C-alpha cells in the first residue's frame, strides 16, 4: 500500500517564505511553487550563494533538490537551514524528509520528532515518520508513529489511522489492522486505500463477504489499481470461483504487466480449471521472468533501506525494463540520473535509455555486446528488446 504525503510539506514550507530582494532566489522560488524544481535549482543555488545567512535560501534549495530526487545534496542544504532556523517546524520536517531520502534514518527520526515537538498540533511529521518506518518494514515503530499522529485532535487524521492499519497488517495483527482501517473509514468514509486495507484484512481473516464488499468499494474509488484487482482475484480463488479469479488476475496484468503474483495466480488458476496448456504457458512466462521478479522484489526492499544507492537504482532500471515495465524503468532511470549523471557510460543503461526513447534498433547491438551471456537478467532484457524491436518492424510493415 502507499501514501502520498508530499503536499503536506509544500504547505508547511510556507512558514519560512521570505521576501528576499534577490532576483535569482525569488525566481527560483516561483519555479519551485510552479512545480518545476529542476529548473529552480540553479537559481536557488545562486540565491543561496548570495544570501548565505537567510534560512529560507538553503531551505528552498533543499526542497527543490528533494523534489528533483537528489537526496544527498538536499540533506546537506536542509541541515544548513536547520542550523540557521532550528525552531521552525517546517525546516525540521523537511530535514527529516531529506535525511530519510538519503538513508540517514536516525537523523530523520530525530528531525521529525523535533518538528512535532515544536508544533504538537500538526501530525504531519509523525505521518512522515510512520511512512518512513513502513517503507523499511519496521512496522512496530511505524505503528507507534501513526498511533501518536492519530491522537492529534479528534477524530484524528484518516492517513494516521490508515497508516496504523498498514503497520498492523505488516505485522499480521489482523484485529488491530481491521480496527484501524475502520477508524480511518469513520473519519473518511470514501478513503479508497483504507477500504483496500480493510478488504485485505477481512480476506486474510476468512470473512470473504466482508472482504468482497470492501474491495469492490475500493475498486470503485481507486479505479485501475492493480493491487485491488489482484486481491479481488485472490478472493475469488478462495471463494472457489476460478472464472471470476481469472478475470481479476487478467485485469491486474492489464493494469500492471509486471505483477508477478497475478501472473503466478493466473497460471495456477488456469491449471486448476483444467486449462492446462494455457496455464502452463502462463507459468512458463512466470518462470522465465522469475529471476527478475525476485530481483525487483529484493532490490526494491534494499532501495527502501538505502534510497540514495546508485547501484540499487541501476538494478531497478534494468530489472523493470526486463519485466516490460517501461514506466517504472523510466522513473528509475530518472532517479539514477540524479544520483549518477554519467549513467550513459554504462552500455546496458545507455541501451535501455535508447529503448525508452523508442530507438530499439540502435539499442540492440549495444545491448548484445554489453550484456553477460549467462545472466538471466541480461537474457530477459535482450528478449524484451528483441520482441519490441520485432513488433516495431511488423507495425512499420
Amino acid at each position, binding site marked *: 500500500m502507499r501514501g502520498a504525503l508530499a503536499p503536506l510539506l509544500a504547505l508547511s514550507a510556507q512558514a519560512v517564505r521570505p521576501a528576499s530582494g534577490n532576483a535569482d532566489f525569488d525566481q527560483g522560488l516561483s519555479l519551485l511553487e510552479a512545480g518545476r524544481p529542476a529548473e529552480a535549482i540553479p537559481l536557488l543555488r545562486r540565491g543561496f550563494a548570495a544570501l548565505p545567512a537567510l534560512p529560507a535560501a538553503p531551505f528552498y534549495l533543499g526542497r527543490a533538490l528533494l523534489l528533483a530526487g537528489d537526496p544527498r545534496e538536499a540533506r546537506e542544504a536542509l541541515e544548513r537551514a536547520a542550523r540557521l532556523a532550528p525552531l521552525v517546524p517546517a525546516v525540521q520536517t523537511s530535514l527529516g524528509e531529506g535525511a530519510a531520502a538519503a538513508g540517514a*534514518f536516525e537523523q530523520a527520526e530525530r528531525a521529525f520528532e523535533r518538528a512535532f515537538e515544536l508544533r504538537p498540533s500538526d501530525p504531519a511529521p509523525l505521518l512522515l515518520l510512520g511512512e518512513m518506518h513502513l517503507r523499511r*518494514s519496521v512496522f512496530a*515503530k511505524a505503528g507507534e508513529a501513526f498511533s501518536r499522529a492519530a491522537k492529534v485532535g479528534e477524530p484524528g487524521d484518516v492517513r494516521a489511522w490508515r497508516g496504523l492499519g498498514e503497520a498492523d497488517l505488516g505485522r499480521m*495483527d489482523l484485529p488491530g489492522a481491521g480496527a484501524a482501517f475502520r477508524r480511518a473509514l469513520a473519519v473518511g468514509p470514501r478513503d479508497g486505500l483504507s477500504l483496500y486495507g480493510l478488504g485485505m484484512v477481512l480476506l486474510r481473516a476468512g470473512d470473504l463477504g466482508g472482504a468482497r464488499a470492501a474491495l469492490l468499494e475500493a475498486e470503485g474509488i481507486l479505479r485501475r489499481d492493480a493491487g485491488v484487482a489482484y486481491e479481488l482475484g485472490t478472493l475469488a480463488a478462495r471463494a472457489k470461483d476460478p472464472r471470476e479469479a481469472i478475470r481479476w488476475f487478467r485485469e491486474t496484468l492489464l493494469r500492471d504487466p509486471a505483477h508477478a503474483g497475478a501472473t503466478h495466480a493466473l497460471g*495456477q488458476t488456469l491449471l486448476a480449471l483444467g486449462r492446462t496448456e494455457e496455464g502452463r504457458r502462463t*507459468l512458463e512466462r512466470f518462470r522465465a521472468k522469475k529471476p527478475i521478479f*525476485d530481483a525487483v522484489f529484493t532490490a526494491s526492499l534494499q532501495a527502501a533501506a538505502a534510497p540514495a544507492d546508485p547501484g540499487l537504482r541501476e538494478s531497478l532500471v534494468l530489472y523493470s525494463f526486463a519485466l516490460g515495465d517501461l514506466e517504472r524503468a523510466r522513473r528509475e532511470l530518472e532517479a539514477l540520473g540524479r544520483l549518477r549523471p554519467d549513467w550513459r557510460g554504462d552500455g546496458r543503461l545507455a541501451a535501455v535509455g535508447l529503448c525508452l526513447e523508442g530507438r530499439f534498433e540502435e539499442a540492440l547491438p549495444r545491448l548484445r555486446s554489453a550484456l553477460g551471456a549467462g545472466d538471466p537478467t541480461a537474457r530477459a532484457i535482450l528478449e524484451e528488446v528483441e520482441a519490441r524491436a520485432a513488433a516495431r518492424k511488423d507495425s512499420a510493415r
Partner: protein
Amino acid sequence: MRRASFLLLGALGGCADEPPPVFRDVAQEAGLDLRTLCGDPEKPYIVDSLGTGAAFLDFDLDGRPDAFLANGSRLRGFPPGEEPRPRFYRNTGEGRFVAAVVGLERPAWWQGCAAGDFDNDGDPDLLVTSLEGPVLWRNLQGSFGDATAPAGVAHRAWGTSASFADLDADGDLDLYVCGYVRFELERTPKGCPWKGVRTFCGPLGLPPEADRYFRNEGDGTFVEASAAAGLAVPDPAYGLGVVASDLDQDGAPDLYVANDSAGNFLFWNRGDGTFEEGALFAGTAYSRDGVPQSGMGVDAGDADGDGDFELFVTNFESDHSTLYRNLGARRFEDVSSEADLEAPTFLMLKWGTRFFDFDHDGDLDLFEANGHVYPQVDAVPGLSYRQRNQLFRNDGGKFVEVGGTSGPAFAVAEGNRAAAFADLEGDGDLDVLVTRIDGLPALLRNDGASRLPWIRLRLDGRRSNRFGYGALCLLRTGGREQRREARSDGSFFAASEPVVHFGLGGSAAADEIEVRWPSGQVDRAPRLPAFRLYRVVEGEGFHPVSGADRSD
C-alpha cells in the same frame, strides 16, 4: 512420558473429558546436557546462523531411540583439544540418556542429520552434514565407523538437511543431501541492512551450493547420480530441508526440497529412479502470491484426512509457514490462510517441524521450532532473537495454536532450530528434541497423551529396505482411515524415529491395519488392540512387542 492410571481411561471415545497433553522440557534431568555452539555470538556471517542438528536412532537395537546431538565450530577455530564435539547418548530407558563414546565424536562444523540403514544390515547408520561435506557413520554394532569415502559419498560442500529414501525402488536406501551456499569468507560481505539494523549478508548474493543425489548400488556403496536421475537443476538454490514422500500416490517416493530465498523443488519420481522437477506447475514452488519464500523445514502428512499428503514448509520471519493442500493429479494449493496458519506464524522465524498427532485424536497436528537468525533484531521493536516454539492442534483442517495451554515448555523463548521426534519412553506418545543455537537442547516430554489410545508400528523390511522407509501404513477404525508413511526425514537438520505412530481418537482398537511396502508386498491385520507397539515383518505379519493391555 509417564504412564497414566488405568482409571483415566474410563471411557474410550470420551477423550473430550481428558485434559490436553502438556509438554515439559526434561533435557537436563534426562541427561541431554550438550551445550552446542555455532559460530560467533554476533553472527557476522551466514555460517554462524543455522545452528546444529539432532537425530534419534536405535543404535543398539534395544527398542529405545538413542539420541545424537551435532555440534558446530567457529570461523577462527579452536586450540587443539578445545574444539566443540558432537555427542551420542544411549537411551537407558524411562527417558534417561547417558553419553556414550561410540566413535563419532570428531570435531567439525556439523550441521544436519539423516538416519537410515544404508547397508541393510539391520541397524541404523547416520549421516551428518557439515560445512565441509558429510560424514557417513556406519553402525558397527557397538560403535560407528567412518564409511564416507568407501561408500562413495565424500564431497566438499556445505550440506544442510539430508534424506535416506529408496528412490529407485531397488530395496536399499538412496541419499539426497541439500547444499546451501558456496561460502568463501573473503568474498562474503559483512553488515547488510535489515529493518534498520546491520546483520550478516546472504544467502541472496552468495553462490548457491547444488544438492546431491547418491544412488545406493546395493553393495554398501553409492554413486553420485544427480544428473543421471534428473535431480541436477540448472539453477541450484539454497537447500535447507528435504522430505521424501509419495505425494502423487503412485507407489514411488517423490522429493520435496525447501529452499531458502528461492522457489522450492518438487521432484516427481517417474518410478524408475529418475525424476522431473515440477514444483511450479504443482503450485508448491512459491506462496500463493508467487513469492519465493525462505524455506527452512519441511514435512508431508495427510493433514486433512483425505488420503493424500499435504506439504508444510516453515519460512523466514515476516512471512508465514505454508501449508500446501494436495488436490490430487499432482496439484497443490496454498491454504495457509484458510487453515489459520498465516497470522500466528508470521512474526516467527521457523525451522524444525513435523506433522504428528500429539493428542492422539486421530489427526495430524503441527510443531514448529522458532528462533531468529539475527541477534541484532532485538533492537527492532516487535521482533526478538529468541522465540518460543509453537504447537498447532488440528481442528477439522484448521490449526489452532495451543502452545499457551500445552505446558511451560512453550513459554520459553530460545534460539530453536532442529526438531527430532520419537517416543522416548515407549509409552506411546511422541516427544520432541529441539536443538538451540549456542545453547542447551530442549527435550519436550509429552505428558498426558499416552493415556489416550495409540498404536505404533516398527517396520522390518525383507525385500524392502530394512526399516521400511517409504511404506504406507493405513489404520482403519470407526469408519475412518489414517495414512502415515514410515520415514525419518523431514523437519530441519533432524532425523526422527522411523516408527509409525497413530492416535486412535478414542477407539480401543484398530479395525484393520494395512502396510503397503515399497516392494509391493501388502500386510494386513484385523482388530489390533491399542496401547501397543507392533513389529511388522514384511510378508510375515504383525507381532506385538510391548505395551500394557489397558482393556482390563
